């Protein structure tokens, strides 16, 4: 063992949480090694030039949840952080009309009034009430959850704070919060709005990444989670990082490197090395070993506990809980290279509707029916698609005059009934393309190339179990102090020195960075004890 193979901490996985964790540890003076299995960092946040000049956001495709603390504390602007403004939300309708909201609240009122006069103030009440819920939840979201089963004074203190915080809420706020945490988004929205396209536009955010429809209880928490993000402080708004989320993870890699971390690519970690219940290092698939008293896994809980660690070294109840932890990947992507601009007849030559998301979810029922298929192991005939022509937001994504379009597709279950994704991927992508063609009559003529990413692709390329983009579903019993398992929400594991920092820990998935940051805080606290 040479000195170059000894570190203070080793981070398994160079996705955004692994890099965030490594940057914080390195900035605190630790000697850190990041081991990434692929030849680029980023995990599920990569950008790939699949055709000369056309850059695809293969998996993750926008930014909102990223905690602003991380931008500031790691001084990411210095390393090229640049979130570009996504200015609009465009929802085509079956009758050729559309719902288009943008950056001007007063103009949005006019657009809402076109669909429902009552929804103008309905929307404002909805936004105010949900903003209050976000404000109330945020301190829980942005702190390490108390470990209910620990007698550590830090946990006792966190628990006391939590009880006090909950006690500060008024009746309506607490009730709204619980309704969102446990109920269905469409129930909640029905109290405020009547227009179907407006309701569908709001509810669609609840359907991203979970195997639930907008009418299912449990969709509320997903809606709330995804609305916890912001762009420049504006709650619930999204941005597109310069160069895609791959551009963002390159920023993180530059920051981590500048703070002193080593990043080693093409390094597939196969096992943890332990001794007497304590971690000693890791072994790569090729037999190379690296030693450190701290090893941090950014992988999802299944791989962290059942593959990298030896389950025999873990308490049986933890192993059982992790085996029960639900993944159920449900999402696909179809990314297009386009020869020009899709045409939406009702908007003539306008293109300003492409400055943000294009939401193919004309009604709440459309999404619920799209979900129905998934319950029985099949993919939607009429998929819900969250699309974006990213080259409108960042012209460097495609050659001048050409475009790249990312289509996030729901619902496509990981396990198909009596078939495989190898057999079904092209047909699924055909349905996506046919859906786009239905709304944009020149779409088929524009397609130069398409990339199909199924839940199986996500699993095989990123390692996310069952292709679940959140590294574990957002059910109430898999969140906060239950994420990933009761008693293990503090980023520690039963193996001393072995930590978790992936999206399977609190607060959860998306390009958010919080798990990486919180884990670094826990590690530094423990190291200094």
């Amino acid at each position, binding site marked *: 063992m040479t000195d170059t193979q000894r570190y203070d901490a080793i981070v398994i996985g160079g996705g955004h949480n692994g890099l965030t964790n490594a940057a914080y540890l390195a900035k605190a003076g630790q000697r850190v090694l990041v081991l990434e299995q692929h030849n680029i960092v980023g995990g599920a946040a990569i950008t790939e030039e699949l055709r000369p000049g056309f850059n695809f956001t293969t998996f993750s495709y926008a930014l909102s949840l990223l905690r*602003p*603390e991380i*931008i*500031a504390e790691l001084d*990411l*602007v210095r390393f090229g*952080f*640049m*979130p*570009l*403004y996504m*200015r609009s939300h465009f929802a085509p309708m079956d009758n050729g009309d559309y719902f288009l909201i*943008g*950056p*001007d609240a007063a*103009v949005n009122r006019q657009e809402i009034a076109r669909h429902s006069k009552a929804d103008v103030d309905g929307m404002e009440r909805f936004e105010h009430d949900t*903003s209050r819920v976000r*404000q109330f939840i945020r301190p829980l979201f942005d702190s390490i959850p108390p470990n209910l089963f620990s007698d550590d004074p830090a946990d006792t203190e966190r628990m006391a704070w939590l009880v006090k915080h909950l006690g500060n809420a008024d009746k309506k706020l607490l009730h709204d919060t619980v309704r969102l945490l446990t109920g269905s988004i469409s129930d909640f929205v029905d109290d405020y709005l009547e227009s179907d396209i407006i309701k569908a536009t709001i509810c669609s955010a609840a359907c991203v990444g979970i195997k639930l429809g907008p009418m299912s209880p449990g969709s509320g928490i997903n809606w709330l989670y995804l609305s916890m993000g912001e762009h*420049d*402080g*504006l*709650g619930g708004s999204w941005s597109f990082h*310069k160069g895609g989320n791959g551009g963002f993870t390159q920023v993180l890699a530059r920051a981590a490197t500048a703070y002193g971390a080593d990043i080693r690519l093409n390094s597939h970690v196969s096992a943890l090395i332990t001794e007497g219940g304590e971690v000693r290092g890791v072994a790569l698939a090729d037999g190379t070993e690296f030693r450190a008293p701290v090893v941090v896994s950014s992988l999802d809980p299944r791989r962290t506990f059942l593959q990298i660690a030896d389950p025999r070294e873990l308490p049986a109840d933890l192993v059982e809980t992790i085996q029960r932890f639900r993944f159920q990947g449900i999402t696909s992507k179809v990314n297009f290279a386009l020869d020009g601009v899709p045409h939406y007849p009702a908007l003539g030559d306008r293109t*300003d509707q492409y*400055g943000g998301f294009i939401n193919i979810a004309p009604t709440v029922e459309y999404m619920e029916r799209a979900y129905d298929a998934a319950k029985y192991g099949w993919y939607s005939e009429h998929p819900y698609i969250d699309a974006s022509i990213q080259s*409108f937001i*960042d*012209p*460097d994504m495609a050659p*001048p*005059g050409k475009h790249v379009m990312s289509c996030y597709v729901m619902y496509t279950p990981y396990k198909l009934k009596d078939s495989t994704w190898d057999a079904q991927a092209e047909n699924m992508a055909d349905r996506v393309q046919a859906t786009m063609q239905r709304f944009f009559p020149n779409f088929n003529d524009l397609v130069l190339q398409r990339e199909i990413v199924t839940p199986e692709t996500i699993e095989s390329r990123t390692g996310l179990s069952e292709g679940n983009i959140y590294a574990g579903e957002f059910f109430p019993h898999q969140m906060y102090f239950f994420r990933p398992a009761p008693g293990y929400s503090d980023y520690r594991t039963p193996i001393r020195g072995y930590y978790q920092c992936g999206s399977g820990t609190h607060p959860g998935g998306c390009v958010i960075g919080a798990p990486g940051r919180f884990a670094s805080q826990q590690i530094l606290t423990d190291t200094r004890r």
Partner: protein
Amino acid sequence: MMRTTPFHPRLSELSQTQMWGNWAGYLSAIRFDLSSKHEYFGVRNAAGLFDTSPLFKYWIRGRDAERFCSYVFARDARGLKPGRAQYTIWCDDAGFVMEDGVLFRFSSDEFLLTAAEPNAGYLRGLARPFDVEIVDASEEFASLALQGPRSAAILSALSSDIGGLRYFGFTETKIADANVVVSRTGFSGDLGYEVMVPSGEALQVLDAILEAGRPHGLRPYGEEALSMTRIEAGLPLIGVEFTSSRYAYTEHERFTPDELGLGWLLKGIDDPTRPFIGREAILAERANGTTRWSTVGVTIEWADFYELFDSRGQLAVPDEIPVGWETMIYNDRDKRIGYATSFMYSPVLQRHIGIARIKPKYAEPGTEVYIEQTVNHEYINVRATVTKLPFYNPERKTA
């Protein structure tokens, strides 16, 4: 009756908002899009187009043109070569700044000055003892600024003379069959160009630029986005950072070049062979140490801004539109030590920034100061840090 610029017929078609301000009696776009931030990102990540036609433009021609310019303007114009331009200021006899502008040199005896305020009377008055002619060309030319990383590619598609232009260089060329002057100048702190075109041919040139810009994400921008970019670039604006000393009533309205952070323009002031208006007073100011202010940047970190609002039950939502008033600055003992003349949230820098005038002893970068904000109808001071200007200075600007 408000006038419109030669570009207005087309720009009006491109405006989604029809929100126009009043610049020197001309309609000037506040913003074209529903969002100024969208226009701002055009400048920072693609290309943006701003109509600068209301600028005043003066030919300074004649045998004494160079002598005249190096007397009137505080920055030495003698080294300025034909085909080059320079940012400049002019001062009064007491060494206070009157105005600023850009001086272009076309030949040994021909200069062009662009300025935000009218100066024909002032320049002509000073010109009497010189063999120079001052010609007001303000209506002769329309002008536009094309700013942002894609600006070079767009203009290069229209003229082969653009690629070689260096920072503050200019060339006479043709775009869409019109004779134009293209300079590598601007007010955005980014890679950018300005185009001057005879007013009668303005629309054909604009149309050609818009067409060439379409595949590059070119979008027109208005005064709000202009202001955002110029604050990030640390560039002072007359009427905001200072007003002309000529129209001052009190000492509070007069500033010297050093006080405005423009001392760097005075290179060679020790040279006795170049008397210029204000020189003696500025030398005396420097000798006596009577400079009252320093112009610096101030920044607020995200955590401090967030805490300011969150701890008082409010949502912390920063606003990228520069505030329309001065913001007071204090030291750690609540003593007032200056004020920010411009203040905004910078989306590119992800923090609040301000251009500030503070007492020189607080001007060291890194000094902690406090900026007054209003929360829940109370004045609250939030921690800020003194920084160097400019805030934003990409390599491509001068590369």
